[in-house]
């Protein structure tokens, strides 16, 4: 790893996320004011900030769940209102985003990563099930494929959601506080895994986190940008892609 740096990425890389002078108000109260930020291809962006600084709001705007009151957001160079390539984005939600009694197997959850706007009215075919099997293999959850999601440990659930996010081989992976409510060792394993993915695989990462230590440890102590209480720590990777094309080896 020689070419890592926290300085802005070189021009050779495409802009993945462009946030231009975005403001957001929730009932008269300004949550985000005049925020601009750009993430380039193969950046790892860690978004830090205490509660109430608007990190979650920002994330929701980036994935199109909320509309900014002012300013514009582009994904892969396309204004978000027109953006249709949602398959290029993998999304890992907060752990407590689902009901633990929900009757769904690991396989059903992973496969649901394929249900996008392009797949409406289409049946899942053999190729789709193969993708699902591959994603589960990579995350080493094949042996629990038929278990109910609520019965799993926090770390296993995390890998299920990561498998779901990776099933489409996304170019951008968005993680929303992925380690909340998970024990320290499992957290460390998880961070190691995604940091490896960043270093060796062709993906861009945006992670909202409260884990200052982990973020600063990998991305550097100095944020590249800040806006209000939100800090953006960025690390860029130029390493050659992993000789092993799948991610299995990274999970040992």
């Amino acid at each position, binding site marked *: 790893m020689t070419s890592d740096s926290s300085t802005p990425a070189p021009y050779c890389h495409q802009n993945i996320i462009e946030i231009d002078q975005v403001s957001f108000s929730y009932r008269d109260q300004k949550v985000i004011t005049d925020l601009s930020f750009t993430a380039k291809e193969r950046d790892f962006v860690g978004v830090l900030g205490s509660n109430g600084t608007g990190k979650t709001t920002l994330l929701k705007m980036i*994935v*199109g*769940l909320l509309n900014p009151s002012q300013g514009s957001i582009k994904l892969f160079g396309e204004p978000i209102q027109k953006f*249709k390539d*949602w*398959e290029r*984005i993998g*999304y890992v*939600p907060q752990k407590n*985003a*689902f*009901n633990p*009694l*929900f*009757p*769904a*197997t690991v*396989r*059903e*959850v992973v496969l*649901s*990563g394929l*249900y*996008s*706007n*392009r*797949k*409406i*009215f289409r049946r*899942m075919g053999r190729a789709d099930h193969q993708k699902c099997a591959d994603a589960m293999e990579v995350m080493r959850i094949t042996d629990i494929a*038929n*278990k*109910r999601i609520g019965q799993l440990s926090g770390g296993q659930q995390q890998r299920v959601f990561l498998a779901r996010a990776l099933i489409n081989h996304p170019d951008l992976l*968005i993680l929303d506080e992925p380690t909340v409510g998970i024990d320290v060792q499992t957290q460390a394993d998880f961070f190691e895994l995604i940091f490896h993915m960043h270093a060796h695989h062709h993906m861009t990462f945006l992670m909202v986190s409260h884990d200052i230590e982990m973020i600063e440890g990998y991305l550097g102590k100095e944020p590249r940008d800040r806006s209000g209480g939100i800090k953006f720590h960025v690390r860029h990777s130029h390493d050659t892609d992993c000789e092993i094309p799948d991610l299995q080896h990274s999970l040992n």
Partner: protein
Amino acid sequence: MEILTVDFFQRALAGGLLIGITAPLIGIFLVLRRLSMIGDTLAHVTIAGVALGFLINVYPIAVGLVFAIVASFAIEKLRKAYRGYAELSIAIIMSGGVALASLFFTLGMGYNTDVVSYLFGSIYTLDTTDLYVVGAVTVIVVIGISVFFKEFFLLTFEEDAAAVSGLPVKWLNLLITVMTALVISTAIKIVGALLVSALITIPAACSLFIARSFKSSVIFSVVIAEIAVVVGLMVAGIWNLAPGATIVLLLIAMLILTLLAKRGFTA
């Protein structure tokens, strides 16, 4: 057993079998989205529509259906206005429905026995028109759910993830809402407004304990509802009991059995 050959009983059985498909199908999505009480609410609003139908002499189920659809939109609106208080919108609309219903009752000639039959259900009075309406609703709901099954799964499991995948979340929610209104307004003549939510929620409640996958929980809940409807109607027919009540009590008995069996397995 000669009751099986009587045509009002055959119509009742046919209607019951159809509702036994649609109610749990829609119910599993409602239960998992923490909207179990919506069945009760829409049923009470539907009763107001039915009462108005009798008052102005229009096919009561049709008026009830219109009321249910309007109410379900109102619930969605209120649900957004009071985020995180889904049950608040349901409570408001429910009391509104009861108030309207009693207003229309008293505007008519006192407590109309026809209206009362909708409160407790009167499956034996199903006529051919009713059967056609129930049949049409069944076709719509079964097609709607099978076409959008995977999208509804993701929407129910995690609404945010569905939105991030670019699914038309608003339209899918709307479709569920309209189908719910359709199912409830047609089910009340069969099990009655006071009991309709049992047919929607109890099969789902049972299947949450037995099923591992989502697909199997959907299948289980339909099977459970159908068993309750068929056995309930037979028992009620032979021993001359109230059919709606018999179906609901059977459902509760099945739920208790499921719980005991589950405890037996895990203990």
